[in-house]
């Protein structure tokens, strides 16, 4: 089968799956899957840029996604004046001090290569930082801990948080890239994995910044609230006119709003990525991926290019992370688990076909669909399996009790099946 036909068919399949969900489960479910599918597609686009195209083994996706989430809080939540009064400036000063210490020691290391001196500066700096920080942080966290207990954000429109998420992630990626990109793939992998864990640890524990594990709920939305729509007579009228009940209509309306926005972002990013890939830039990146030594000898600045693509890919993940947090309406640092936000994204990229942007998008949508739908699938399968068994038998009871474990098992089976029939991914690079 030729590749473009295959592409069309597979995307049609995904569309069909979602439509099927719409008809047989509900349109709301279908749209929920679609929305997170779009976000997942963007994440896998970012990972594909790094791995599929440049061969960088970034297993820190979770960290960048989380930074995107943090950006939403920092951008869109309204500031907490009491907290600012209690210790805002001092907390900022602490940040400045912290950055300065690191910058100074990095410079010292470059200039003098005297390890002990750097360590000394770091230790002294650390105490200075803690001294500036601790009081401020305690003061901030003491302000209404159950309700706020953090500085809040800038109170800007939440859509601005998306590019902000990208920027934040890009900034972090730049720092990480500068230090860690020299590592070989698996070593880079564990380094990025570690750094993402560090990012999560900071988000969990720096309450003054992100409210930590107490979560930030009720984030602003770029779309109207369902309840507002339900209260709006014109909307209700129109819904009734279409033969829908207002509650359903409002939820669908809101979700469609997200779908459109997400789709727009995805399309823009996809087009940019495709243009870049099918150009000398993409060729050069593939060359670097194939053979770094040789690419260097052919005059390509591998280090710089790696950094560039690492930052870009991470920024995309950051944007997606911000979008996801916006969709969720809340930031919950504990939900960031590597399995879900790093490895599942990788599964998406590889199943879709690494090196192929369309493949990554496809993989994102498809795997996400299954991730959600394996639960009913697994239950159905189990019902089927136990149908023949006599009622009340121990085995049947035991199996039915364990039906929830079918979820991941079914996911595993699906993953293996997909990979069996397309061992190079659904839409291979060439």
């Amino acid at each position, binding site marked *: 089968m030729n590749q473009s036909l295959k592409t069309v068919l597979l995307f049609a399949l995904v569309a069909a799956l979602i439509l099927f969900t719409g008809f047989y489960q509900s349109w*709301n479910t279908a749209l929920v899957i679609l929305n*997170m599918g779009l976000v997942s597609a963007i994440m896998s686009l970012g990972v594909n840029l790094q791995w599929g195209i440049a061969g960088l083994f970034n297993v820190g996706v979770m960290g960048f996604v989380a930074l995107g989430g943090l950006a939403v809080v920092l951008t869109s939540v309204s500031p907490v004046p009491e907290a600012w009064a209690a210790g805002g400036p001092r907390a900022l000063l602490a940040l400045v001090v912290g950055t300065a210490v690191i910058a100074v020691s990095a410079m010292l290391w470059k200039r003098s290569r005297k390890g002990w001196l750097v360590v000394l500066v770091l230790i002294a700096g650390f105490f200075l930082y803690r001294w500036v920080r601790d009081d401020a942080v305690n003061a901030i966290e003491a302000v209404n*801990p159950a309700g706020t207990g953090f500085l809040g954000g800038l109170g800007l429109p939440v859509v601005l948080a998306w590019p902000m998420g990208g920027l934040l992630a890009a900034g972090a990626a730049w720092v990480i890239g500068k230090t860690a990109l020299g590592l070989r793939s698996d070593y880079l992998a564990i380094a990025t994995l570690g750094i993402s864990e560090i990012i999560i640890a900071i988000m969990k524990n720096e309450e003054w910044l992100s409210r930590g594990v107490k979560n930030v709920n009720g984030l602003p939305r770029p779309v109207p609230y369902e309840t507002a729509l339900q209260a709006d007579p014109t909307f209700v009228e129109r819904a009734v006119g279409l033969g829908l009940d207002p509650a359903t209509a409002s939820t669908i309306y809101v979700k469609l709003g997200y779908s459109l926005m997400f789709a727009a972002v995805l399309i823009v990013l996809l087009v940019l990525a495709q243009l870049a890939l099918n150009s000398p830039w993409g060729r050069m990146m593939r060359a670097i991926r194939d053979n770094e030594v040789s690419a260097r000898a052919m005059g390509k600045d591998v280090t710089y290019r790696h950094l560039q693509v690492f930052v870009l890919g991470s920024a995309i993940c950051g944007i997606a992370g911000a979008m996801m947090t916006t969709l969720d309406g*809340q930031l919950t640092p*504990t939900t960031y*688990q590597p399995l879900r936000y790093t490895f599942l994204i990788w599964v998406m990229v590889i199943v879709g076909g690494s090196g192929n942007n369309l493949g990554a998008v496809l993989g994102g949508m498809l795997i996400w669909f299954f991730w959600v739908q394996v639960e009913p699938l697994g239950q159905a399968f189990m019902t089927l399996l136990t149908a023949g068994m006599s009622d009340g038998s121990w085995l049947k009871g035991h199996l039915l009790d364990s039906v*929830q474990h079918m979820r991941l098992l079914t996911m595993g089976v699906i993953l293996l099946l997909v990979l069996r029939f397309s061992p190079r991914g659904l839409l291979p690079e060439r």
Partner: protein
Amino acid sequence: ESHMSEVKIGIILGFTGPIESITPAMADSAELALTEVNDSGMFLDGIKLVPVRADSTCVDAAAATAAAERLVTSEGVVAIMGADCSGVTGAVLSNVAVPNGIPMVSPSATSPALSTAEDNGLFFRTAPSDARQGAVIAEILKEKGISSVAVTYTNNDYGKGLADAFAENFDGEVTLSAPHDDGKADYSAEIGALASAGGDALAVFGYTDQGGKGMIQASYDTGAFDMYIMGDGMYGDTLFSEQSDALEGSIGTSPWAQGEGAEMFDKVAGDAGIDAASSYTRESYDAAALIALAMAKGGEATSEAVAANLMDVANAPGEPILPGELGKALEILKDGGDIDYVGASGVELIGEGEAAGSYRYYTVTDGAAETVEFK
């Protein structure tokens, strides 16, 4: 309305993930209540309540939202018993329940923050907020004359909230308050730091078969502390019997009703083969029962009926109802009477999304919890 002869209730709990070991008993308890309602034959002209389970994963807000969305929009559940962990509960509430007007009754989401969540009158819980538990524990310690403790809490909104609430109310000194992550492989570091900080006892605000247990075990293995103070998440027979040496003489609190209700539940659950002593089984039973009773009170098995009447059936005035007496309650309601559901956990709802509830203060003796008093 013959086509309405089945009405679905969603049961959203973390069947996979960090609290996967306590959720089956919770779900069973909830279903037990529904079965009881169905079996009584008293429920709204023979409408059957059908539980539909879904996985909240406890930690993955997106997956929980998707699961809830599926229950609401495709399975058509009219009310949700759940979710379990405070984080995902908040997500399901604001992303699914509120937009669709579906009431949620959580048996175990105890974070104080949920009290103020925007819920359009749709969120209820049967477990009291940790703000109160913190105060209760502080009070107990004062009575016992313990003036310095080290605190470790599970690093989520529940643990943090409870630790904060405790610290705020505690008169003595908290030598160190160190979080622990659940499901991790090793807790030596936390114990090392806590032991260094010292204290008369170690307060553990975690989960019974998670990091909380790990902390107690690590402490026992190194001889760091001899006495433990345990929050609600720690209550569990297995833990007590398994760590009986370590826990001898330790104390704890758990949302629990005085007397009858709890005993009845033990019996009812025991008959149904459910491990009643597991965490939050009582609250789960109550949550499901409340949903059914609210429907009965409203005279229709709809979301609106649940949201509108739940507070009513839960609180006085009315005939007190214990576990196993749901049939009786339904009968009263059918006759237009009033009930005050007490249930397994002594339900008392104070305002939306807030349960009063009482706590059982127990000590561990010979590997079992022994009630000291109820607070």
